[in-house]
């Protein structure tokens, strides 16, 4: 009775029939592996978005547990980095940043707090918009930049551009994902048996970058795209490799990713940035996890250009609620949003307590956006099309039209 096709063409990588075939394949592989749980990790907010959006977890075999790792660059931006941006804004400098960063709490204040007190904070959608902003004013404009390799490449291109305005500088909170994957792989007692690599980051770095990682930790990495069929096909490959006890790297996103990656982009990235160690919020000190601007570009590096005093912000104690936040556990793959007693209660997208609820790439925010419970494996009956149950009618909501006591 329910039409399965809406009369509008399905996109090529969104064909539910193929999805069902891949889900059956996952089921078969999980049975072959035979133990549980089989814990896999992806490291990308866009993967979590697609998984939640299309309800993919409901199609996974019960033994497969796919968790989201440190794949949200906004979430892992550490308190001192937010504090630097807030201190700059409060000192009268114009700070431009992505909308996601606005509400990310620093030690005491967020940029949104600074904005409500009169600081100039502009939301931009790209680094080039921040440059346009600088061109339109004589004020100092600082772009507070976050993101993994993919976004850092765009920042690097602007820094290298000869006609960038003189009043423009960058406060880099860019992150490098590979060292964080190593940290997660080294967590004592970790159960992660394989990683799903992010296709767009790999388009820049090339899939070859994962080979030493896979060899060192003996765990497979599969690079996958972001459509539902990309993800399901990536997981099928990953389970095959887990079953065979193979490490190594497989590229399941060949339409965008090569082994070498985008060499020109890599060249620009490493000309402008170097890695340095730093705290990732809630996770750990990640050696080589931060991308910082090289000395050569000191004039465009806000950390060298301004004397940033973050201690001036520490006038009150941090919120008590923040102490109960388990973002760190979530980002390390040790906990899920449902393990947090504040999820969907005190902590909401409107009034986030932890960074995972702020960013559209954060696990808590995504889970909340898609109903608060993206995994319906235990909630709904498994057959694809249950006929409406012919239960005896309940007393309430009977055919009488308007029985409302007022």
């Amino acid at each position: 009775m329910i039409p399965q096709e809406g009369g509008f063409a399905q996109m090529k990588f969104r064909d539910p029939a193929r999805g069902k075939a891949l889900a059956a394949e996952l089921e078969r592989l999980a049975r072959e592996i035979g133990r549980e749980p089989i814990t896999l990790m992806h490291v990308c907010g866009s993967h979590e978005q697609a998984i939640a959006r299309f309800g993919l977890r409901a199609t996974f075999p019960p033994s497969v547990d796919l968790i989201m790792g440190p794949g949200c660059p906004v979430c892992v931006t550490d308190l001192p980095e937010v504090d630097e941006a807030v201190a700059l804004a409060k000192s009268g400098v114009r700070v431009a940043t992505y909308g996601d960063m606005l509400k990310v709490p620093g030690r005491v204040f967020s940029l949104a707090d600074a904005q409500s007190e009169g600081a100039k904070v502009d939301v931009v959608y790209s680094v080039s918009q921040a440059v346009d902003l600088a061109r339109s004013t004589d004020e100092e404009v600082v772009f507070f930049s976050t993101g993994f390799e993919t976004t850092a490449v765009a920042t690097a291109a602007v820094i290298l551009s000869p006609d960038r305005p003189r009043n423009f500088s960058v406060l880099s909170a860019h992150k490098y994902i590979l060292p964080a994957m190593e940290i997660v792989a080294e967590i004592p007692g970790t159960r992660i048996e394989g990683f799903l690599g992010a296709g767009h980051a790999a388009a820049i770095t090339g899939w070859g970058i994962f080979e030493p990682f896979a060899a060192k930790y003996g765990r497979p990495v599969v690079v996958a795209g972001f459509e539902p069929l990309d993800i399901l096909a990536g997981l099928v490959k990953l389970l095959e490799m887990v079953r065979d006890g193979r490490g190594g790297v497989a590229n399941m996103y060949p339409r965008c990713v090569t082994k070498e990656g985008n060499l020109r982009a890599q060249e620009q990235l490493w000309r402008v940035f170097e890695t340095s160690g730093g705290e990732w919020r809630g996770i750990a000190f990640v050696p080589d996890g931060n991308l910082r601007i090289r000395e050569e570009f000191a004039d465009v590096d806000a950390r060298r250009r301004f004397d940033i005093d973050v201690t001036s912000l520490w006038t009150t104690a941090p919120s008590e609620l923040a102490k109960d936040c388990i973002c760190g556990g979530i980002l390390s793959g040790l906990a899920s949003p449902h393990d947090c007693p504040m999820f969907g209660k005190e902590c909401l997208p409107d009034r986030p307590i932890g960074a995972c609820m702020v960013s559209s790439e954060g696990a808590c925010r995504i889970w909340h956006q898609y109903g608060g419970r993206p995994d319906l494996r235990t909630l709904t009956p498994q057959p694809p099309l249950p006929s409406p149950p012919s239960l005896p009618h309940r007393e309430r909501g009977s055919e009488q039209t308007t029985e409302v006591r007022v």
Partner: protein
Amino acid sequence: MTTLLSPRPAILDERISMKYGAGGRAMRALIEGVFLAGAAEAPNGNGFAVGLSAMDDGAAIRVGDRWLVITTDSHVIHPVFFPGGDIGRLSISGTVNDLAMMGATEVLGLTCGVILEEGFALDDLRRIQASLADTCREAGTTVVTGDTKVMGKGELDGIVLNTTGIALTDRVVPDSGLRPGDVLIVTGTIGDHGMAVMAARHGLDLEGELRSDVAPLNGLIRAMLAAGGEDVVAMKDPTRGGLASALHEMASKAGVGILLYESAVPVAPGVRAAAELLGIEPLHVANEGKAVIGVRPGAAQRVLKALRGHPLGRHAEIVGTCLADPPGALVLDTGFGRRLLAEPEGEPLPRIC
């Protein structure tokens, strides 16, 4: 109160923000927490009335052996003229549709209050008036009384229209009448109005593919009710908050679960493309010329046929069913798997109707 309206206790902010007018969870919390909390009891003449606490599309009052249905709606929209309509057409359709959603399709008359901003162009006002009149003719009714005020420059955004409508009916269809097994039908493509208005507002060039669906639905609903009769058990127009919000409300009031099949929900290609581009779910986008109708399973095909026989219901589709479990929840079958479909907190697009 006989119905479970809000699964979580609502926390209201100290100041009103845009989300409180957006038709989602926040707006419901505001109504429950402020207006409902302080409201006197509705007149309870013959023991039956649909009053404020029902939070339905309008109120029903017993008059003799019939029901008088009354509803009111204020309209602000930017831009005032948008592809497929304007604020005049919107304000007539909005009120006529709220009456129709209660089963009252014979509109006795409408009131129209106009508040203008100093500096508003007379030509624009004339265009709006012509559109009001045309839409009234379409709905078979007229504006019978009105009111005009002017406010200073900057005190409001151009024009605000308020319309109140009354209609008589023999049978009121509430939005709370679903039970497990019932079938849900939408009368056409979803998301057209909100997407068209947003495209017009932000200068999104999608080659004229996006047009608001704003239209009075009383003719369509009359034809549908003639075919479905008593088997039509719940109706709602998915305006602000979109289909997701409307279904949430129907599910939680009736205490049933709703299983919605994403692939069955008709969405125009232009709307789908724009939604994909902007990362917005069409299910959360406003409609102004659509209804979602709950019917007993045996009547589904009959009702669908009646809808498709009317020009405004050509693309009607069966989109979901009601389940006993989980009560109050809206589950989306994406074709791949299932997930809960959240009730939007606010609106992805502020002020579109």
